């Protein structure tokens, strides 16, 4: 059990004092085996990223390729001076913070129920995994139809709430549209969060919780003083991955609003510059800025919350 508390790591490296033939051969074989995967990963990300860095210094539009001219940091100045860039960035950050916060709460509640439940664990796990497997585009359509003015059931079911009536147009203004987008995002990604939290929860020894109970701790005290601190690493890893994933939000917005009602995200803006307007230079500058934003967010989360990256061995 002590192993699980400490950050899990590959088998600790034995002191490489003497370089025997055997260890040299092992070193070589290891490098050979990881080479294909590493080359592929680097080739498809690092090289294009450098290409983007290069292109971002040019005024370059695909429709007029002869007009390619060096502008230095001109594209960056244009982007950073444009209020649209900051509006989209704000939308993206709002979506990231709200969805991750809500997912953390719902995900934790799900994990608690799943942890305690005695029967039908299979049914529960299957139900929880279905949103995880469903294509984001399908989720976006399902929620778009649900909120639709003419074809949705949401208005009908929830019109007893004071702020919903049978003619609430969910895609008619900024906050309603953002709400619909976030609902789809949360539905689709909460399962992943709750599974990670469940894994963290099941690592806490029952004895410790029992002991706290015997000592007279209330449910809230047990949660705050025993359960949460012991799950800190699992929570932080889940938050890090989900936050970076949410920051890249694209599919839901593309399907549900296409950026209407000022719901565009930074990813969507980048896509639009490159694919719809063929502004390769400007689009590349946006790509680089987006990449830097992700680095910055990762840095802030890792430093501020001291996320133990050794535990972070999950996909986004």
């Amino acid at each position, binding site marked *: 059990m002590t192993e699980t508390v400490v950050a899990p790591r590959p088998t600790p490296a034995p002191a490489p004092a003497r370089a025997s033939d055997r260890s040299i051969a092992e070193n070589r074989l290891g*490098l050979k085996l990881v080479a294909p995967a590493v080359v592929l990963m680097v080739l498809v990300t690092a090289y294009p990223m450098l290409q983007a860095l290069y292109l971002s210094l040019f005024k370059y539009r695909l429709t007029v390729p002869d007009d390619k001219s060096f502008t230095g940091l001109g594209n960056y100045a244009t982007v950073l001076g444009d209020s649209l860039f900051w509006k989209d960035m704000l939308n993206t950050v709002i979506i990231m913070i709200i969805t991750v916060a809500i997912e953390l709460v719902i995900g934790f509640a799900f994990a608690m129920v799943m942890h305690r439940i005695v029967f039908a664990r299979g049914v529960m796990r299957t139900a929880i995994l279905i*949103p995880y497997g469903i294509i984001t*585009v399908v989720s976006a359509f399902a929620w778009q139809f649900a909120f639709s003015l*003419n074809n949705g059931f949401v208005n009908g079911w929830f019109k007893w709430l004071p702020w919903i009536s049978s003619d609430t147009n969910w895609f008619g203004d900024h906050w309603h549209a953002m709400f619909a987008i976030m609902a789809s995002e949360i539905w689709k990604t909460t399962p992943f969060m709750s599974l990670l939290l469940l894994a963290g929860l099941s690592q806490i020894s029952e004895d410790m919780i029992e002991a706290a109970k015997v000592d007279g701790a209330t449910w809230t005290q047990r949660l705050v003083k025993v359960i949460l601190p012991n799950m800190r690493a699992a929570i932080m890893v889940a938050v890090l991955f989900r936050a970076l994933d949410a920051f890249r939000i694209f*599919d839901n917005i593309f399907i549900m609003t296409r950026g209407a009602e000022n719901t565009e995200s930074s990813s969507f803006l980048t896509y639009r510059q490159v694919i719809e307007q063929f502004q390769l230079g400007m689009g590349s500058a946006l*790509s680089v800025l987006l*990449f830097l934003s992700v680095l910055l967010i990762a840095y802030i989360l890792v430093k501020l919350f001291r996320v133990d990256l050794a535990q972070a061995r999950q996909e986004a």
Partner: protein
Amino acid sequence: MKQRMSPAHWAGFVVILVWCLLPVVWILMVSLKPVGETTTGSPQFFPKDWTVQNYKDIWDNHDFLRALGNSFGIAVIATLLAVVFATLAAYAIARLEFRGKRVVLSIALAIAMFPVVSLVGPLFDMWRVLHLFNTWPGLIIPYMSFTLPLAIWTLSAFFREIPWEMEQAAQVDGATSWQAFRKVIVPLAAPGVFTAAILTFFFAWNEFVLAISLTSTTAARTVPAQMSFFVGSDQFNPPYSQLAAAAVIVTVPVVVIVLLFQRKIVAGLTAGAVKG
């Protein structure tokens, strides 16, 4: 060990089931409504007239069928290749001592967090020059590199749990090294590899940003991309229920996989996160 089920847990159980399954049931219901019903507006949950006409129509839609073929082909090829490369890498990480092991894991981690949309511009530019734009390999290559991190993390966590000494034990008992590998190691490693394959397949099946950016026709467009361009004969009244039928069709493989392998998927998703 476990406490008795309280009413709160019962309520939680029901709430989770409804929350997770309601949107899926809803899209199924929309798909069973006649096109006319959704065009005039049909806010009720269940169809007034149940019909499977949408499924017949979508089955005659050649663009959709081609997209379905593209999705399957691209996802399966990307999965197979990614899992092969990841298995080699994960074996090395779990079993061998070599310099740069941590670097490999860090690269994998960095790529898992990479903003895919940043690649859209440069890849769009490069793929046109290399004639990879709007082709299967044009999507398979980036899908492989984005699924490798997940596959490597999951597999190395699985491989670390395998009692590799058993291989030697079998050889001592008289098995050849090939027999020892095939009869002892393969059965132990197979579930992990299989799980990694499922998770990789889900990623490729779901991917959207590159799918719409690096394709232009049904030659390589996958289902998510095709669905986003789905307009019927009347542009202002998209056939919602047909779209819903298409959504149900692409969801079926996922639901089947989840039903069959939920235990493995949960193990795979959480393997690396907490186990040592």
